[in-house]
């Protein structure tokens, strides 16, 4: 048996083992996620930030030059400053 065949059999066995480990690890990860404490639902599922700011600014002229000239446009801070508890 040549060296390539020996390597090939070793890699075959490792590949089969890795596939099994990969699937088992994924199942373990899903089981752990299911058993773990339920996180607070937020963001993607249920945004809590109804007071959100940073409303998209839509320029009148949709071209890059006009977009670049907006560098000095002010941020909409007034809506939120009162809602932020700063220390």
């Amino acid at each position, binding site marked *: 048996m040549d060296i390539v065949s020996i390597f090939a059999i070793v890699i075959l066995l490792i590949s089969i083992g890795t596939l099994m480990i990969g699937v088992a690890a994924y199942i373990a990860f899903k089981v752990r996620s299911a058993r773990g404490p339920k996180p607070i639902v937020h963001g993607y599922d249920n945004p809590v930030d109804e007071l959100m700011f940073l409303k998209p600014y839509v320029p009148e002229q949709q071209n890059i030059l006009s977009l670049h000239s907006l560098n000095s446009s002010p*941020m909409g801070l007034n809506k939120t400053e009162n809602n932020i508890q700063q220390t």
Partner: protein
Amino acid sequence: MVAIVRFKFFWLILGMSIILTGAFIANRAILNANDFSLKLFLDNTILAVLGGYLVIFLFVLIFRYVGLLFFSLSEHFNRILTHKEYFVTTQLDQSTLPMVSIIVPAYNEGLVIESALVSLLTINYKNFEIIVVDDGSKDDTHKKILAIAAEDPNQRIRVIKKPNGGKASALNYGASAARGEFILNMDGDTKLSKDSLLNAIKHFDDPKVGAVAGNIKVLNRENTLTNLQALEYIEGLAMVRSAQGFMHMVNIVPGPFGMFRKSLLSQVGGYDYDTYAEDCDLTLKILFSGWRIVYEPTSIAYVESPAKLLDLLQQRYRWTRGMLQALIKHSKHLFNPKQSKTNFFILWYMAFETLIWPFSSIFGTIFFIYIGLQHGLVNLLFFWWLQLTILDVIAALYCILVEDEDLRLIFYVPLFRMVYCTVIDICKVFGIIEEFLGLSMTWGKLIRIGKM
């Protein structure tokens, strides 16, 4: 709509051509023989078509690696040639540099937040403020932030406490409260290199540049898994971003180091909540708004990577589904090359890395295992693995030399290709399937070890 139809037509013709060619090549002998059987014909045809697909995938991979190496090397030489300009920039009087607001979202980061903030206070940049957004932490994160803030004689740390709303909302809160002209978004478990801000801010001299992506490295190289991730970060992320930077096609401004013009964040509406990869989604919004994103390899952010396999899978599962969500959200650009060829290419590259690569890689492994066991062609599996490993060794060696990394990482390449990538790809494949099935998911906060 016409473009979509054209593209579907193209793929249909390509698929049919592959199937017909495969069937013809595989069955030339059988068709001429007297003992023709339908089962043998189908078996040969299917194997030939699948094998043909893998050969095409292999050529795409080689093209990808060669292309990335070439452009990454070009970027490297470009940096060497412009080093003089960089030196002049760093010698500038710092009082003339604009104010930067560093925003640190923190949710239960009690174990790492202290060291992260202490490292921020020592960076080589004078005009900055730190806004720590405590996103409803339940541990002692808030207490520790206040303690560090009180110790800073220059009072550069501001603390915002808000109800838990996720990372995107924390970053948006921070951006709204920011006083700086530029905003640096990072993670609560991240440490920055001393000159990271100074090296990043110079890119904003160009008015077309809207964001700067930093270089992410693994800090806690404590076991085999974290060393494998260190290798992955330099080969899979740093090299790719370096090449993308040369082509002005950076497709992700990473969460641990992303610097933006504040006006740009306002323009695109900050981070959205409809994906789990808020950094990827924001980057695509910036690109589609016509701004340019650059990569700065010397702006280094050191992060604590998952040290346990299940934690790693949790992270990659979220990344995969998040990127897929971002890709689907912006999918109209996938079929509209006329609007912007650059953005069209970027999205297709993302589709390849997120969707096609994991599926093809796992499929290739299963295919060659089947061929080896069923038809005795075990050597094919060896050559399949060998060609992937050779590509990885070349890329890793180049990255280690360019990034001035630990040369010992090269010894992890065989394990990286044979085991690590397969396990991660399995997780990605399941994540993709679950995303298309519409199964629910949660953020999945990683448990910090506090090795920073």
